[in-house]
């Protein structure tokens, strides 16, 4: 089952612009992670935000998490052509006992195209 729903499904911008992708989910989580997948390549971990965190930065990436709304956003600032890829959010859900087995549930992804 797909928990994370991402918006938009596709995003096309010019180099230097910012790109914002949103993710919504349905259950209680231990953490939320963002991954990037280039065409024909495997997934690469970008950033992890814990359930008790609201914002996190890593280089040109900024992630926010609102557990009350069960949503997250990924902002890529000053985008580059090399940022062209599919971006996925993935949730590490808490089970009924309030613990995590590390199982990730991925969204459908946002396809980002950055034009030079």
């Amino acid at each position: 089952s797909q928990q994370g729903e991402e918006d938009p499904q596709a995003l096309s911008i010019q180099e230097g612009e910012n790109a914002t992708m949103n993710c919504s989910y349905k259950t209680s989580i231990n953490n939320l992670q963002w991954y990037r997948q280039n065409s024909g390549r495997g997934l690469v971990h970008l950033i992890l935000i814990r359930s008790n965190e609201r914002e996190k930065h890593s280089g040109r990436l900024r992630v926010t998490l609102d557990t009350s709304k069960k949503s997250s956003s990924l902002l890529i600032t000053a985008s580059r052509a090399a940022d062209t890829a599919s971006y996925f959010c993935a949730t590490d859900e808490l089970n009924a006992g309030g613990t995590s087995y590390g199982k990730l549930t991925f969204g459908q992804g946002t396809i980002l195209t950055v034009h030079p």
Partner: protein
Amino acid sequence: EAGVAQSPRYKIIEKRQSVAFWCNPISGHATLYWYQQILGQGPKLLIQFQNNGVVDDSQLPKDRFSAERLKGVDSTLKIQPAKLEDSAVYLCASSLRTFGRGVYNEQFFGPGTRLTVL
């Protein structure tokens, strides 16, 4: 450090044939995952191992899919017999450890095996 290794990278078979994929996780990683990624979708977890034990196989179609991790290191995923809808990329991932609230695990993914069933 070496990443997650998978083979083969590509496989084309006819429906009703059998196929097997191999994964070697990052050294020391106790947890291993197999995902299926259909074109245009996000990865879907098929099975999760902790050492050589199964943690979650709730989404594994057990009538045709099987997986093992006998010595707690390498793993194989098998499909027998294959159907057209099994055409997908099969991703293997590993992480250092898994259990517990407050345990935060990054998963490292291999390059995947692209399976085409004709």
